């Protein structure tokens, strides 16, 4: 399926995004000033080690939480400033969300097809037959089943189909293929890419190379900030945030054991070198 050309109006735009979690033992900085734009028609994958802030970022993008600081705009709404009602409306009509655990994303007492019908009714507008949506993730023959009759993988695919039904403007999926075998993971990716092709902005998190290779855009997150970005077949580019900070890959970082660097500009190149030993 040919990918739609990303439009210029960003579905998501964030700047200096900070997310801090408080606990009895102190504060945890999940995101530390992250800047990002996501456009409709593209599938973006957020990758990164555990604890890098992927889930926190996706939860914010899904308008399910508010940033601690910074600006986050989703589908034209400032998530930090919007009222609870506005956020509710945003989630209801504009955002499809697949949580990290599939059981969190489905109603336990409704048949698969009914779940899709209900969510489609909330999202409104013209929508595809729920059976077609189920068929797209390989659940055509499980439409009449309750979730407790579905396997873990089937529940995961049902959660994905719930996020896709009604063609929301933004689809956010937290590791949607984590519990799937390769064939089903490909099915889910196909469905997500189709949604992007239909004009949705799709953003997912994943560790899976088979997923990241199919992304229009790959973002690497480390320690709560974007460390690099890869678009299509281009080489990975390190990301400099709005305050000028640059995150070096671990291999490069080892070259600077004193954690000090001399930045030199030579023509249109920037060189980093160790400061001279005294």
């Amino acid at each position, binding site marked *: 399926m040919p990918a739609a050309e990303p439009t210029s109006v960003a579905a998501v735009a964030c700047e200096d995004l900070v997310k801090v979690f408080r606990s009895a033992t102190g504060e945890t900085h999940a995101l530390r000033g992250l800047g990002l734009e996501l456009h409709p028609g593209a599938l973006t994958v957020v990758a990164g080690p555990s604890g890098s802030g992927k889930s926190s970022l996706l939860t914010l993008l899904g308008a399910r939480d508010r940033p601690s600081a910074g600006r986050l705009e989703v589908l034209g709404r400032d998530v930090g400033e919007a009222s609870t009602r506005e956020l*509710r409306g*945003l989630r*209801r009509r504009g955002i499809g969300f697949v949580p990290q655990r599939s*059981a969190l994303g489905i109603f336990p007492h*409704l048949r698969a097809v*009914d779940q899709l019908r209900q*969510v489609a009714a909330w999202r409104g507008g013209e929508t595809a*037959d729920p059976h077609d949506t189920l068929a797209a993730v390989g659940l055509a023959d499980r439409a009449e089943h309750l979730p407790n009759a579905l396997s873990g993988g089937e529940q995961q695919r049902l959660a994905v189909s719930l996020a896709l039904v009604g063609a929301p403007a933004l689809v956010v999926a937290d590791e949607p293929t984590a519990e799937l075998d390769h064939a089903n993971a490909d099915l889910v990716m196909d469905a997500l890419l189709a949604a992007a092709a239909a004009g949705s902005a799709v953003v997912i998190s994943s560790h899976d190379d088979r997923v990241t290779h199919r992304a229009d855009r790959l973002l690497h997150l480390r320690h709560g900030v974007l460390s690099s970005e890869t678009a299509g077949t281009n080489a990975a580019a390190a990301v400099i945030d709005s305050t000028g900070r640059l995150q070096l890959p671990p291999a490069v970082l080892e070259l600077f054991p004193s954690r000090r660097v001399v930045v030199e500009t030579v023509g249109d190149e920037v060189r980093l070198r160790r400061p001279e030993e005294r």
Partner: protein
Amino acid sequence: MNRPAAHPLWWAAPTRLARTPGWLLLVVVATTLLVASVAAPPLFVATARTSALDTGLRAAAGSPFGPGSADLRVVWDAFLPPRDLQTVLDRLDALPAYGEPDLGASGFGQSRMRRAYAVAGDRRSPASMFFHEGAIERLGGDPDAEGVWLSETTAAELGVEPGDRVSLAMIDTFFDGRPTLARTTLLGTYPTPPGSVLPTVLADLPASDRWLVPFQPDSPGVGAPLAIVSLPTLQKMSMRIFETVVFTADLVLDHDLTPAQATAAARGVEAVGRESVDLATDLGSALRSGEPDPARLDIATGLPGIVAGAETTADTARVQVRPYAVGGQLLAALLLAAAWVLLGLSRRREQLLSSGLGLRPWELALLGALEVVPVCLVAVPAGLGLGVAGVLTAGPPSGVGVDVGGADLVGAAAASAVGLVLVAAVAGATGLAADRQARLSRLGGRRITVPWGSAVLVATVVLGIAVLTLEPQERSRTPLAIVLPLLVATTVAILVTRAAALLAGRWRLRSRAGSARWLAARRSGTVLREVSALAAVVAVALGMFAYTLAVQRGIDDGVADKTAALAGASSSMEVAEDFRGQGRRVAVTAPAPGTSVVWRHGVVVPPRFGDQPLLAIDPETFADVADWGASGELDAGRALVPRLAEEAEGVPVIIAGETELEPGDQAALDFNSEGVQVPIQVVGVVDAFPGSESQPNDYTVVISSRRIFPLVPQTIDPRRKGATSGEAGAFTSWVWSDGSSAELRDTLRAAHVAGDGELVTADGRRVANGLVASTWAAAYVAALGGVVLVLGFAAALVLALRLADRDAVSDVLLRRVGFSNGELARSRAWEIGRAVGVALVAAGLSVAVLVAAPTMIDATTSIAPLARPRPGVRDAVTLAAVLVAIVLVAWLVGARRAARRRTAEVLRAGG
């Protein structure tokens, strides 16, 4: 492309709960209890009314017509033309709940100087004219024939036989003048049974002993011989001999009346009374035509009083039950809300999903409401049934059952609707909270944490002070009577569970590593707050249950004590003359075993002004006959009775009630006549004494009749020859009995003592003073205790289920490292047992605090002694049994739930 037409989430909601039978059961139970808590109080009050009415009617059954009988006797004193007589009878016949009027008429013109006689020649024999509807037919005569029927004895005295001419006359015995004779024919004679003036065929009729018959002027209790005539004959002859005739219409009240029917009957009787003096009515007009003078209607029945008494009892029951009823409703609502909150916790994932999908709070509220609609439909009949069952088993005794009316059904439906709204509100609030929680993530935002423990403590102290400022009687009439104990139980539960949590570390150290107990200690640590919270709920429930047991016993014992203080003995009868004027021995000697003679009088005890009741008893027989209550509060008085016979610095007395006198004090009794003062010495002061009847700020002086009679003024000494009860300032004498009123009558009859005096029974005193309503309120409290026990069981079950859910994953892993299923189950049982054990300690402490606090349960503080909660050994045993049952049930439920889980599913779902 198509538009989705269905909203499956909404359609699925009504059957949603059916998929989780445990939660369904909990919600059904909670809603049913809510409905029952609303439906039961009106049913309770209605049953109290029915029961009081039933008691009153049964007590009045068979009594002579008058204020003591519910049956109706209408009396008038003039002849009415047949048409007007029929108007009167028709009006009486129209009275609701009464049978047909039974018409009678008798000559009542006799006095000590005018006597009614039958005369034949120069012979005469006493005979008063008598008519009763159907009497002549039963004698075998023709009711239309003119003539008279005389007894065989009278006929023999006159020497006449049927067919002979006889005369009836009113003879002036003082002047012995020539009487006016009314001549007629002797139609027949009849035999009479011994002791009766009625013909044998009439005396055998069950109602004939209540007929109004002429009596002998010299012996008012003995009937005069009759001259039975027809009504026309009676009219004609009475006019000729100037006899005064009294007409009666007797109406018997129907059996098994409802309060509404009885009220209608009483109102009907009152209406007849009003109409009889209103010439604009048919009845008043008919009475106006009486001969020789317009008739005046006298109405004799005790029904209005019985109905009013039943209403008073019902009102008293309502007042006394109200605080507990409100408490029960609050508890039931709390249980339902808590059940839905816990259900919401079990659906935490789904709540997040709903929030994520943007469901609005009102949609969540409606979904919650839709879920409980079927529950509410079931709860209306179930709650009503439970209310009826509760009232039947724990409420006032009622022989006619519990009548559920339309209003009760509406009340139950309203309660069910309230439950539905409550669930909707909880569901909506939960959804709102889930949405709002996101806002708190903003930097600088502060979560508002309510210090529940401190808040409850402060509320308890404030409310406790507020309650103590109320008069003791007022305390029991506000919902505070149940709210404050609830707060006290909650405060104690919080303190104890927190203390237990602090001690948990030490407990861990003493358990053997790897044992089930060791595992339980480590598991509890991870969810300590939740376990503590549920333990606190169980503690509050058990505490309230134990408190209700103590309250019920306290009220029941208190009622028994107060009844003893009021009535003195099971039954007692005032005896006017039999013990007077016959010396000391007769005055103080009990007429039979199981009885005692008690004398009452008023006496001044300077420096206090005004009469205090004086109770002169016979110490030798009094203690065994008197009622000493149930709680032991009156036992101190019993122990003092022998001391009344001892020597002291004055006549020994016991003071019962509020007094400034103390044991050992000396004072004097002033009998208000001839300046005679009797020195006394107080041997003891008690709050109450059998028959003391002391009011607040008042006291009764109890003294030995053997010691006081020689010292009282001669004019009032009942021992002296010629003493009578009619003398000014005379003692009143009573015979107390430990038997029933019937047994007392029999005893007195056998001892040849008059048994027609005022009768006082413990039951009567209990009803008259509203104490019987207290016993019913106590039963309601017991039912309330059952409700909180259900709450405790439910909380313990939830605890077990939550622990089983918590352990879903760890059980799998622990089994793989060598723990057996039995060990895991025992471990969980240890946790539940520990939580419930902590709850038991808290319950015991809270009951101890509440029992030690000033009483809040006495609704009749004007009658000493005060009723207070009374815990018993049986309560402790009951609590221990409940503890064992809770642990067993919770363990079984948790183990069963854990056993039904499949390892693969558990691990895949993350528990």
